[in-house]
């Protein structure tokens, strides 16, 4: 299938510092795509290139198979990490202004503004100045600014930072809804929990390069370390068995024991053995979290 966004071999240099070093990635249509990486890895540079704010020194960005131009920005919605609004503008006017800048007619922008304000319970704030709103409400207004013109591609830079859990959930619901309506979503974040929860694919960028790309489940499976959580009845601790497994530290809140299988040992062998000695209440494989994969990959890179 034709990727919706295709970044091909993009190189970008700032003042002798290489921000992007032959970066390529494919974002399928209708996908929620995570763009991960430590600070300064080059995520913002890449986003700015996709946004047409800056241009790559080499390489190109294709939208639906054809080179992207500045006119395509009306199909884009961008929520920067640093939130910015005109503080002196009224909420409604602000949303309509951004919508019209993105090419909407005034009537369309006004209609969409009403719809979105209602969805986020902000209707009564429509004629208030932005500066009168709480921080959380301002972020909702900024989110509406991003999606008002129904862009085909949405770029969110740390969308959940600064949101309380209730509002973060509401935002998540809206993001998934936009995806279901056909939008492709590019997500730049450090928040690995949200990556596991909503991203289907990711790219991990470190030191200006893509170091890991693919489907989230596949990545987690390919990074598994044969660790199994075992739950047993009674207070008797699990005895070590060097031939089959070693006990590894489990998270503090877990009531299960984590074991790492010895080389060449299958989970089946372990179940069989344990079943003979204990009453098993649980037995499941632990996949590495995206957090661990992220940290390990980045660390491994910096040791190279």
């Amino acid at each position, binding site marked *: 299938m034709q990727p919706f966004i295709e970044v091909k071999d993009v190189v970008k240099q700032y003042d002798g510092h290489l921000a992007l070093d032959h970066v390529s990635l494919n974002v399928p249509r209708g996908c929620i795509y995570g763009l991960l990486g430590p600070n300064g890895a080059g995520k913002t540079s890449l986003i*700015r290139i996709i*946004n*047409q*704010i*800056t241009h790559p020194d080499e390489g190109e960005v294709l939208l639906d198979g054809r080179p992207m131009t*500045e006119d395509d*920005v*009306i199909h*884009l919605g*961008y929520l*920067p990490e*640093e*939130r*910015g*609004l*005109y*503080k*002196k*503008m009224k909420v409604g006017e602000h949303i309509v*202004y*951004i919508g*019209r*800048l*993105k090419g909407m007619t005034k009537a369309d922008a006004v209609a969409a503004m009403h719809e979105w304000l209602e969805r986020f319970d902000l209707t009564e704030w429509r004629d208030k100045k932005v500066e009168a709103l709480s921080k959380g409400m301002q972020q909702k207004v*900024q989110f509406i*600014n*991003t999606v008002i013109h129904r862009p085909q591609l949405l770029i969110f830079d740390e969308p959940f930072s600064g949101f309380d859990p209730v509002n973060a959930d509401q935002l998540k619901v809206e993001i998934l809804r936009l995806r279901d309506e056909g939008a492709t979503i590019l997500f730049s974040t450090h928040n690995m929990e949200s990556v596991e929860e909503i991203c289907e694919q990711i790219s991990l960028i470190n030191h200006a390069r893509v170091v890991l790309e693919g489907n989230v489940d596949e990545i987690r499976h390919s990074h598994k370390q044969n660790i199994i959580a075992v739950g047993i009845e009674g207070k008797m601790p699990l005895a070590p068995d060097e031939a089959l497994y070693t006990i590894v530290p489990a998270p503090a809140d877990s009531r299960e024991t984590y074991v790492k299988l010895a080389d060449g040992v299958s989970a089946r062998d372990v179940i069989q053995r344990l079943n003979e000695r204990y009453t098993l209440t649980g037995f499941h494989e632990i996949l590495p979290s995206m957090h661990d994969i992220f940290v390990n990959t980045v660390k491994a890179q910096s040791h190279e």
Partner: protein
Amino acid sequence: MNKLKLIIAREYMTTVARKSFIFTTLLVPVIMILCMGLPALIAYYNQSGGDVETVAVIDASGRYGTAIHDTEQYHFVVMSADTIADPYKFYNSSDKSLAAIVMIPRDIDSTAQATVFSESTINVTLKSHINNALSDTISQTRLLSYGVPNLQEMVDKANVDVDLKSVKWSESGRETESSTEMAMVLGMVLSLLTYTFVLMYGAMIMNGVIEEKTNRIVEVIVSSCKPFELMMGKIIGVALVGLTQLAIWGVIMGVLSLVLGSIFGADVMAGGQAQAGMQAMQEMGDSVDMAGILKAVMSINYPMIITNFIIYFVGGYLLYAALFAAFGSAVDQAADASQFTTPIILIMIVALYAGIACIENPNGPMAVWCSIIPFTSPVVMMVRLPYDVPFWQIALSVVLLYATACAVVWIAGRIYRTGILLYGKKTSFKEILRWIK
């Protein structure tokens, strides 16, 4: 184009709706009228509101006492010198109610000396009033003493104040009356207008750019339009704001001065001005004929001056506004901007002083050069314009100004494009030069 219009409209609407804008727009003309009207009002009340004071004139000559006539402030009472020997004793015996005592000696005809006594410092107005009255009478007496018939009339006729009219030939050789004073005032007003406008609204542009940059809205906007559009939108929007403000000020000040004028009457203003130190005005008042002034005002070539003013005003504004926008984009906060704005302001001040100096010699080499160099020409040319600048100079200067303005706008666009997205760095001139490349 559509986006540019939107940006201009937003810039205009939000600035005009600001409380601070409404406040300044309404308050400045009131303050200005107060500043101009207050001295006049004070003088007016000083003059007519106070009690009339009595001045005793002790006249030993017997002829001069009656020459001093009462004024609105002072009433003069002539006393015989025979009854009063010591003015101080007389002053004390009068319960100190006298404002002053004038002593006119017997031999005033020859000595031309008199004395005023008072316990407090003697008012300048009172002093000059007495002086004038006595001097006039003494000259008349002396003229009479020569015994020449009709000498007084002859002297009056000989006293001439030349009314020097300056006449300028128009191209067809027709004579038109011109007034250098009027031309000078007009040139200076236009020049100051350009200077103030550029600095005031240039700063407004810069602060707007810095504000957009610091609250990061700029990232959202430039992902919807070109940075250049945003910059130009701001420059044009602020220009419209400035013109609106000027128009409102013009209207308010016009209405206020009409209203105040009709309430207090024209004599308040006139009297006030004269009182405020311009006594010469009164003397001039007779010789300046209003018809002449009107003629001079009419003789100025308004269409030429106004057209040129608009051309220079727009060009100069564009030139400086683009610089302000570019420098605003290069800094993170207003406080850091001074290293960039100081040179701009210095150039403007140089231009203003060059303009003032040009009044002395509007066709001298400095005037000519400064009115051709683009950075000073918008201010300096305004001063020269009423003095008929050769066409080639205007043409050269306008072409240079617009070429420079376009170049500066283009360069500013490049600086702006890089600057607005760059944070947390102290930017130097050197770095900015690299962005242009």
